[in-house]
């Protein structure tokens, strides 16, 4: 048992979902305990059938200040979207 509990991010795959979705975070002593607490904190109402926990410190995240260089250059490249195409007859979704 360490003195300081670590922060973990919790991902849950719902019964009918195909992928794990981020649902929140919690504190635990190690990954195993984090998994058990995730069960108790986030699946009380049968929300899921599979849980992932990841130590928050292991996540490398983009920063607010990255926005300009990351996303702004995409604004003038509308041809990357499929929105210009006419939907063929009989196709409901692309």
């Amino acid at each position, binding site marked *: 048992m360490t003195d300081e509990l670590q922060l973990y991010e919790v991902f849950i795959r719902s019964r009918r979902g195909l992928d794990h979705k981020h649902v929140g975070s919690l504190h635990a002593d190690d990954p195993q305990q984090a998994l058990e607490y995730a069960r*108790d904190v986030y699946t*009380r109402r049968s929300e899921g059938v599979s849980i992932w926990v990841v130590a928050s410190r292991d996540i490398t995240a983009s920063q607010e200040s990255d926005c300009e260089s990351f996303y702004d250059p995409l604004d003038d490249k509308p041809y990357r979207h499929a929105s210009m195409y006419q939907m063929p007859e009989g196709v409901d979704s692309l």
Partner: protein
Amino acid sequence: MTDSALIAKFAVRQGDDALVLGHRLSEWTSRSPFLEEDLALTNVALDFVGRARMFYQYAATLTGGDANEDTFAYTRDAREFSNLLICELPRGDFAFTICRQYLYDAFALPFMQALMKSSDQQLAAIAAKAEKETKYHVRRDTDWMLRLGDGTEESQGRMQKALDDLWGYTGELFDVDDVDRALIAEGIVPDVSLLRDQWLETVSDTIARANLELPQADWKAAGGRDGIHTESLGFLLAELQSVQRAYPGLKW
């Protein structure tokens, strides 16, 4: 006693164990060491209260008349409660609560597994549900036993003290009386006295892994099944039953 009266008595005993232990766990709500554990303990408390309801409802069906789950829970006095003493002891510190839970759940797992084979379909069904919950409880309890036992000097000391204080109450888990004997003979309930070796093996292993010492209690508490309780049960019931005692028959 007829078979159904005996089964009702057995169901009430199991219901009492679950209700009283569940209430003790519920006392931690908002007082746990941290938020995540608060939710986890409350979940376990709810499992036990749910288990109590299933046993009481079945007992009420067998008893007939005005009996229902609420009359069992709210209108009997301490002398009529038949829970094991280990379930009613005050919650103590966190180590005591975890240790009690571990010692009880380590028994409940093989017990419920054996009860699943009961010739009584209803008891077998209740046991099947309880067994699933208990597997998770044992996993949680064992985890905490290891964390606290093999933790700091403080946590280890508290866990060892809890173990020493509780050990004399574990013998009662394996006591068999006339009610049990009659039901065991018909294959309706398991013989708990046969579960002791398995329990001791499991518990000894965890205690060793948790860096704790197996206590050598030279005393054994008994009397719970006959309604002879410690002084703390009366206080527990006073709180548990206060609303129904003040407003008899009140509906939620």
